[in-house]
């Protein structure tokens, strides 16, 4: 059955479950509560909700102040704006000042489809990963999103979490969702190729592995939801056993998962690394599904690239 629950809704559910007991949990939005699926939180916990208007610098600065006072703020705004409009607040007020701010980037990547490059966040992984003391997570489905949120609620460091706008097909089930904080999840194991994906590209990566399996090609698939800190040991292990490494991300080809994996592989076990990503150009107009289809970021497209890579 097709999943109809977007990851962003799960974030709201988890925060609401905990907000009843933990009055330090605060949710901040920049006129973005609807987009973030956080309206139920604002309605149920008005004393723990903060609306700042369309002002992302204020959003992140206020969140840092709340955190400095010992609260646990979750600031949610479109990924494009919270990472680049308020980039300096993320760097100085959150990471540098070491405040416990969780930055939730909603509608990440090309979620906004035909709204254009202003609304696409194809730079967020690179931008946020380059900040010392900032962690970057891209959960792959609703089940993993829940585990990630539960883990983040327990720690006291800042982090950036990117989710998409639309429901994504499940990678896991409620009963079977192995999760270890800051460790990649191994979805399949095979020695012909290693496919390393993050966020909403994990599901098509898994689909690609199934298609390859039909041709007798065995691929390892890693769900690298923890882009930073990257699970380097998992990358090396997967790459050592494979003929080639293929990375998949809904991001610019520069400075994201592909770049980081290539750095680790080249330093530890040199091997061909092929990066599947958005182009270094405004993306073609369309829904995110159409965009992925066009750039080969689907099960079929990824399988084709794997075949090319392993010759």
């Amino acid at each position, binding site marked *: 059955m097709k999943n109809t629950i977007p990851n962003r809704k799960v974030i709201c559910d988890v925060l609401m479950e905990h907000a009843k007991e933990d009055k330090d949990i605060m949710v901040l939005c920049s006129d973005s509560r609807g987009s973030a699926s956080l309206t139920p939180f604002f309605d149920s916990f008005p004393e*723990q909700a903060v609306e700042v208007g369309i002002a992302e610098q*204020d959003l992140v600065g*206020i969140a840092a102040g709340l955190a400095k*006072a010992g*609260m646990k703020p979750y600031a949610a705004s479109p990924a494009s704006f919270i990472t680049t409009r308020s980039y300096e607040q993320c760097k100085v007020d959150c990471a540098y000042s070491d405040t416990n701010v969780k930055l939730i980037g909603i509608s990440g990547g090309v979620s906004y489809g035909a709204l254009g490059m202003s609304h696409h966040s194809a730079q967020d992984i690179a931008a946020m990963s380059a900040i010392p003391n900032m962690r970057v997570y891209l959960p792959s489905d609703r089940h993993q999103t829940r585990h990630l949120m539960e883990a983040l609620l327990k720690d006291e460091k800042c982090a950036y979490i990117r989710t998409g706008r639309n429901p994504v097909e499940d990678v896991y089930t409620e009963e079977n969702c192995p999760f270890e904080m800051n460790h990649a999840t191994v979805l399949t194991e095979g020695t012909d190729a290693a496919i390393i994906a993050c966020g909403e590209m994990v599901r098509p990566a898994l689909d690609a592995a199934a298609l390859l399996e039909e041709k007798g090609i065995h691929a390892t698939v890693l769900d690298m939801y923890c882009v930073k800190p990257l699970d380097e040991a998992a990358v090396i292990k997967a790459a050592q056993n494979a003929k080639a490494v293929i990375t998949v991300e809904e991001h610019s080809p520069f400075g994201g998962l592909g770049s980081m994996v290539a750095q680790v592989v080249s330093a530890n076990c040199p091997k061909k690394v092929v990066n599947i990503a958005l182009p270094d150009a405004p993306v073609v107009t369309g829904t995110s599904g159409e965009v992925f289809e066009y750039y080969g970021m689907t099960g079929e497209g990824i399988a084709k690239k794997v075949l090319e890579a392993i010759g």
Partner: protein
Amino acid sequence: MSENLKALAWKLRMDTIDIIMAGGGGHIGGDMSVMEILTDLYFRQLKVAPENPEDPDRDYFILSKGHSMEAYYAVLCERGFLDLEDVKARFSKFDSPYIGHPHNTLPGIEMNSGSLGHGLPVAVGLALAAKRRGKPNRVYVVTGDGELAEGSNWEGFMSGAMFGLDNLCCIIDRNRLQISGSTEDVMALDDLKAKIAAFGWNVISLQDGNDLDELDAAFEQAKTVKDRPTCIIANTVKGKGSPVMENKAGWHHKVPSAEQYQEIMKDLEERKAALA
């Protein structure tokens, strides 16, 4: 008390100059203009204690104009948070904790700054936390005036008023000079009082922002205002303390020559002695 505090402000200027000389750099002009603001806050207003710097009921202070760090070091040392000799020995030296902007690994410093326009939104968050929890903390943030060209400040002025944060006080070190010249020539701010009042703040404009009694009266008045934050526009003198540097934009960031050092220290000593 007041005369002693005035003398202390002159003494702290001398400490500041010594820190700058020892480190070979510093934002001397703004250090001098902000000194009475910091002195009144740390010696008459702020509920902070070096023996318990993380007290959850403390008042919060944010130096948004982080480049006035040398003055802030002098005040933190005098107040018992840091050791002056250690600061002078290591300021700006290799691998030193004493850098040119606030760094909150040091006791007494809440937030890192340096890039301008960050302090007010953070202060709004701190004050909002106290309001939501029904706690007594007051929050003070000092900004420069040139810094107000950063739009993030005006986002903070909006949200501070919207949230009714009467526990928040923003002090503007209005010395009317920035690195390129007069604030009114670079990017005009006036009528600054009317602008901030229009954002819904209680605004107090001081005739002499380097006068400790005027400052303290304004801080006390701010505490009586309900349901809105207070902004104190402290009309100060950049480089205050010696004709060598007063009201000269070129002294925004400068290290005095040996001769200038002697002259400045003599001027400061005379002003201090006049109060004895």
